[in-house]
């Protein structure tokens, strides 16, 4: 949907942020609440005097409502505010800030991203200091050697009789231990320096993979043409850490298998006939619906009637793949909204759930979401299956008669009042 057709969503977002009831705003600008409702859901175009009046009542420039600020930028600013709620950032004026000072807003958002990356690096290094067996063994060796040197040196330096034979023995021990300490220190420095050349400081391997997938648009053209995953992995993963390279290889292997089983041309023809319903596509193509979802997410935007987003999680709910939509963001870190059908699917395996939804407090939509949880791999005798859930989000979509459920991105930046699934308080102004 073009930016200027989202004016209604921006009006709604701003109104909710101010805690203003729809009827009150409608009355203030001389229209009916039902007409304002249509405007807010982008079903009536708005401009001219009415736009100016609404903007005036909402305390923003009309252009901010008609043009808006980038959704991604707004999301980044919200996350920056959520990191430091005690700073008192004026969340109800976030759109205005981004609109009036786009350069400063971008600077703030990018600084926040950098700080988050540095914090994750610190966490990773702390984990490493605690759990790296090589580092732990080296430090143990050094401390033991220092202890031996200290004990021997104390015996020689402190008052008390030490006969010549023992003196010679402790001198020799100190000499040997100091040489051993020098060797251990050198080896440790070499280990740390060698690691520095291969380790990037972008956080966890999953985050490295997420960043790479974002950069390439979640699509690997060579694999669509039958290239070998090992070659593609070597090219794409050269700058990744070894663990992230392993994860990249696993993703590419599955991508290649999916592309071979369901070529893009066949999928495009099926989409033209069946639409984006993974259940119908699965029936038509003879593939499992999770595979269909992954393949839909890999199609270029021009090949699908609406934008396609995809989230995949394991049975713990941890997101292992995320392709967000501009107006349906997915959290980069931490847990997502527990109301997502992705999680409901885990409790109803093998059932394709369909839901109409909108992102709470955000522009755009409504969306259609399809979710399914299926076992990974083939069943094995005596083994419990490991489930994985997929959620395909398409939109903006005509939701027909389906009621539209309002969902969030994550609790901290969700404006929904009294949500029964709320895990932690929101930091947004005017919400519970």
């Amino acid at each position, binding site marked *: 949907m073009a930016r200027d057709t989202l004016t209604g969503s921006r009006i709604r977002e701003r109104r909710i942020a101010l805690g203003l009831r729809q009827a009150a705003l409608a009355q203030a600008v001389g229209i009916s609440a039902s007409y304002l409702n249509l405007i807010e859901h982008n079903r009536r175009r708005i401009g001219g005097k009415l736009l100016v009046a609404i903007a005036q009542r909402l305390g923003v420039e009309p252009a901010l409502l008609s043009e808006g600020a980038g959704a991604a930028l707004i999301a980044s600013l919200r996350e920056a505010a959520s990191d430091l709620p005690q700073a008192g950032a004026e969340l109800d004026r976030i759109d205005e800030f981004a609109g009036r000072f786009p350069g400063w807003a971008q600077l703030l958002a990018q600084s926040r991203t950098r700080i988050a990356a540095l914090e994750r690096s610190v966490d990773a290094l702390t984990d490493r200091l605690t759990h790296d067996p090589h580092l*732990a063994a080296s*430090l*143990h060796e050094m*401390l*033991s*050697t*220092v*202890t*031996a*040197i*200290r*004990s*021997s040196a*104390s*015996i020689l330096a*402190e008052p*008390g009789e030490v006969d010549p034979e*023992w003196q010679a*023995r*402790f001198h020799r*021990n100190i000499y*040997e*231990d100091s040489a051993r300490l020098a060797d251990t220190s050198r080896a440790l420095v070499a280990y740390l320096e060698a690691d520095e050349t291969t380790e990037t400081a972008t956080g966890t391997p999953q985050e490295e993979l997420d960043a790479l997938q974002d950069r390439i648009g979640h699509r690997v053209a060579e694999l669509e043409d039958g290239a070998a995953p090992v070659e593609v992995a070597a090219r794409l993963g050269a700058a990744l850490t070894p663990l992230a390279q392993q994860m990249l290889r696993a993703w590419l292997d599955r991508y290649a298998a999916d592309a071979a089983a369901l070529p893009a041309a066949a999928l495009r023809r099926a989409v033209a006939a069946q639409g984006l319903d993974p259940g119908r596509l699965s029936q038509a193509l003879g593939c499992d619906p999770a595979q269909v979802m992954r393949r839909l997410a890999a199609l270029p935007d021009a090949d699908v009637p609406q934008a396609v987003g995809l989230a995949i999680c394991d049975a713990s709910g941890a997101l292992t793949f995320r392709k967000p939509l501009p107006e349906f963001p997915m959290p980069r870190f931490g847990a997502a909204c527990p109301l997502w059908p992705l999680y409901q699917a885990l409790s109803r395996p093998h059932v394709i759930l369909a839901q109409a939804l909108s992102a709470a407090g955000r522009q755009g939509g409504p969306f259609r979401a399809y979710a399914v949880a299926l076992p990974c791999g083939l069943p094995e005798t005596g083994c419990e299956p490991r489930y994985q859930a997929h959620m395909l989000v398409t939109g903006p979509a005509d939701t027909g008669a389906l009621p539209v459920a309002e969902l969030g991105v994550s609790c901290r930046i969700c404006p929904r009042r009294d949500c029964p699934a709320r895990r932690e308080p929101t930091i947004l102004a005017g919400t519970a």
Partner: protein
Amino acid sequence: MGGHVLLIEDEPNIIEAIRFILSREGWRVHTHSDGRSAVDVVRERAPDVLILDVMLPGRSGYDILRDLRGDPATAGLKVLMLTARGQNRDREMAEQVGVNMFMTKPFSNAEVLEAVRTLSAP
């Protein structure tokens, strides 16, 4: 001063230094370096004080002490544990398995002597 100390530690020069300072103070000192046979050696030697390193070849000091505390013959043995890791959770683990004193490397001779004196006091 006197009594019997068993030192279970795998670092030869630490063994030599501790044995020297304790012997000089009148203690009878036996040493052992392997974690796997440590429990048997403790039962056989029946020391007054056990100085036990955490990281030993074959078996950790925590596991050894857990076994000793589970045996009525050694449950009341006074134990000084030595470790190169001084983090809170290492100390907590040592306390959970019933250590009497806990010392982090690098320690001084005086600290070891003082600890052994304290543990052997009636």
